[in-house]
């Protein structure tokens, strides 16, 4: 059922995205773009002593991409760069493989329904692709294509 995809927490975060604002003192920024659907996202990160102190984003997208960006910002704060990249990997596995759902993902497990909607995987991963580019300091806007 479609309700498996649009779980309550996803709908909540898509309607009321958290950390959805630009950040003046960000130490890293990156832009993400999904040319298939036109979704755009700007990500702001403040990293101090290898720790993600703050994350925010602005952009326009579907419920899945907005909720994913919102929940991502919540789950990153306090993590080291390596921990953040590890989380990205786990999140990607959650969406694209049949791997068992692990508790390390926390609230992010609500996205497990995306597995059954291959066309929507890119929506859910846009923010995370952008995160990778921000953490790796890639200058070019990242594209899901």
């Amino acid at each position, binding site marked *: 059922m479609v309700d498996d995809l*649009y779980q309550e927490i996803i709908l909540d975060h898509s309607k009321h995205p958290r950390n959805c604002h630009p950040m003046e003192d960000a130490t890293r920024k990156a832009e993400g773009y999904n040319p298939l659907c036109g979704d755009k996202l700007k990500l702001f990160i403040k990293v101090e002593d290898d720790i993600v102190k703050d994350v925010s984003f602005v952009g326009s997208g*579907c419920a899945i991409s907005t909720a994913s960006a919102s929940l991502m910002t919540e789950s990153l704060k306090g993590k080291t760069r390596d921990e953040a990249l590890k989380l990205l990997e786990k999140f990607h596995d959650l969406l694209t493989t049949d791997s068992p759902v692990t508790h390390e993902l926390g609230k992010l497990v609500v996205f497990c329904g995306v597995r059954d909607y291959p066309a929507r995987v890119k929506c859910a991963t846009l923010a995370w692709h952008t995160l990778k580019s921000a953490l790796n300091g890639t200058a070019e806007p990242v594209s899901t294509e």
Partner: protein
Amino acid sequence: MSTLSRVVPTGFDVETIREDFPVLKQSIHGKPLVYLDSAATAQKPHAVVDAIRRFHEVDCANIHRGVHELSQRSTAAYEETRAKAKKFLNARTKNELIFVRGTTEGINLVASSWGRGNVKPGDEIVISALEHHSNIVPWQMLCEEREAKLRIIPMNDRGELLLEEYEKLLGPRTRMVAVSHVSNALGTINPVARIVEMAHNAGALALIDGAQAAPHMKIDVQALDADFYTFSGHKVFGPTGIGILYGKSKLLNAMPPYQGGGDMIKTVTFEKTTYADLPYKFEAGTPNIAGGIGLGAALDYVNRIGLDKIAAYEHELLVYGTEALSEIPGLRIIGTAREKAAVLSFIIEGIHPHDIGTVLDRQGIAVRTGHHCAQPVMDWFHVPATTRASMAFYNTFAELDALAAGLQKVKEIFS
């Protein structure tokens, strides 16, 4: 549910027609398929599938190069489609019909072959604000290469081209005007006869992108006086990978070949090659033979039903669908031209088209979501994307009711 009056032109028996389309008889996620994405690709009737199978099972051989029976059969069947396309477009001679992969290749062929020989630095190419990327990018590439200028005919907020603005764009440097007959993203039917006439008055040529017109209305290239007209097989109920480019023979004769290879030559030596006459000059290599034969069957099928009947029935669908969608609060139709094909592009306040598309899909309803390869159109209307329900003569009023009900469900989930 909508309770509008259903005016169906007499003699249009949609249920019988649906029997011809095996793909429509299936369930998607437990619901009957409602296919509203014909502007992306149209479904194929039995007649087309059978013609392609027959070619592969009975007649398969290469064309134009064998004296044996199978090659002659294949050649005859493939060339028969050229004759059908001539009739379909009302061209003067068969030689004016070039087989291409689709509309995109048709436009690229003209931009490349005609453009290189005729466009000089400072010249101008005119396109419109509602073009598909395939009628933007080839001209952009040409302009970049030849240091020419691309000028854009603007539109109003209904999605209608502004002819008085177009008039101002035309000048002594205008070489080509390339516009779509029907907009894929908005459904607007452009006044192409007038557009061609104005181009000619300015001494320019005119190319019409007929991808979205061919499945829905009668086309007469002589009446339009179009210099080039192109359409895709798969949108007119034929297979993918095949299409037609019409060009006036005088122009085609003067153009250099588009690609070199077999079948497009008269003689080849290492010093010099002489090219074949029309239409083969533009048809290098073994073509999509099965596709060409399938396209012939598709044109026969459409002619059997009759494009006048098709246009009348689809207009009823459009009127009905427009009213049904207008009853949904927060829904705004993008593209409200007075002359419009059966395309309903829309947005719903606060709900992204991709979410709409996914929820509809789970109810068995196939629509297109995104920018429809017309990003400048989306920019003009200040939307990142729309949801598009596009219809064909096999769609029913009940399916439009299902769409409206599906959108109510979308609203329930996201409200």
